[in-house]
């Protein structure tokens, strides 16, 4: 009797659980973007933006995962200190790059499309964005890293991770972890 009642419920629950995951990731992304925009508006001038945005972004973006993927297989030959150093440098670079795209007070109009699950524990949220009169297709790739976090951003088909992978992999082949770190240091210290 109970089984007969429960079975359809159980069958229903499986797809529901999957879509619940999608919804959860999407909600998380929306709140992250709102939070970032609020902080950006309060920052006032652009030079203060990276500093103001860092704590918010660190909460929603997994820079460790990003750095690891951007380096690629060479990451295993990094010592834990080198991994930490590379993550620190890479996050500085990404945050600075991201901040420079902002004009405080100007908000993009974002339309969220149906999220998809390319693999277990992963969610892609495609969005289309209108910013300063231009259309952009942006896919946020999210993963479970202590809660849903952004691990890659694909703008107009260009994946941030794939882009840096092509550069950092070349550095790694040239001179291992040290070359990667020194090239990152150089990029970070380059005047704006």
């Amino acid at each position: 009797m109970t089984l007969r009642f429960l079975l359809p419920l159980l069958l229903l629950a499986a797809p529901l659980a999957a879509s619940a995951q999608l919804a959860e990731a999407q909600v998380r992304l929306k709140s992250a973007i709102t939070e970032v925009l609020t902080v950006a508006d309060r920052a006032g001038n652009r030079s203060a933006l990276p500093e103001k945005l860092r704590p918010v972004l660190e909460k929603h973006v997994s820079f460790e995962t990003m750095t690891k993927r951007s380096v690629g297989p060479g990451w295993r030959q990094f010592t834990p200190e080198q991994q930490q150093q590379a993550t620190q440098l890479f996050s500085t670079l990404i945050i600075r790059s991201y901040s420079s795209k902002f004009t405080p007070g100007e908000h993009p109009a974002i339309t969220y499309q149906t999220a998809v699950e390319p693999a277990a524990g992963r969610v892609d949220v495609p969005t289309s964005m209108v910013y300063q009169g231009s259309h952009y297709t942006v896919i946020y790739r999210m993963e479970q890293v202590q809660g849903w976090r952004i691990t890659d951003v694909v703008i107009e088909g260009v994946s941030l991770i794939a882009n840096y992978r092509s550069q950092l992999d070349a550095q790694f082949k040239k001179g291992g972890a040290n070359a990667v770190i020194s090239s990152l240091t150089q990029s970070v210290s380059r005047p704006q």
Partner: protein
Amino acid sequence: MKFRASTLRLLLLAVSPLLTDCSSSATKTAVKPGAESASTVAATTAKSKVKAGDKGAPGSGAAKDEEVDEYATTTADVSDPLQPLNRGTFWLNDKLYTFILRPISKGYELILPRPVRKGIDNAFENVKYPIRVVNCTLQGKFKRAGQETGKFVVNTVGGVGGIFQPAEKIPALANLPNEDTAQTFGKWGIPSGPYLVLPLLGPSSLRDTVGLAGDYVLNPVNWPYFWYYSNQSKHQWVIVPPLANTLRATPAQMNTYDTVTKDAVDPYLSARSSYSQSRAEAIKK
């Protein structure tokens, strides 16, 4: 006459590497230096490492193949046998942008406010309708060709010659992906060929360079120019539409260049990766 001779020369120039490329493609893939295909090398080294027993990673034993993530490795990097030459052109372009194009672009942005520039951009994009409709048709996207035609009519009539974009308010006509000749070649299965950095124009590939010639011919702003050369007439004004088109497109080009190179570790590789990724995506759409 003059026009015909120069086009022939251009076509020959464009096609000749293609011909030689075909004949030697087999040997080329065999001798291809390992460093060129970063992603495939990455994948194979990772595989061998996994086989070897994952000893090089203290504390990340559970990391599996996470670094060799499918996101990054499936995106094909373009082959770049002419890298030394390309890097040279890239360096030259950087200087050209810094000392010539950027000042021009800044001046243009200073003189005209953003809404006016947007209107001018819209009008020039609207005029490029033949590029889009011909390539939609060549790719068999007949529905899209119809949409493009609808968009062109609505924007031309309702948007005062395309300065405004009322079609963007119509869901069926809004935000259509861009089409060009090189995308048609890609759709037909023609591979991108070697990566090329063109003087002034920047990142391209052999296929896309040939495609640019198609776009050039299909762009109505160049039509008076052709007519001028075929008739040897005295109308100097024909140079104005293509020049204006180049000028109005410069700020966007500078902006893209900055976005791609400013925070890069290796600006050349960043531009190459961004270009090949975005082209692969554009062909899919």
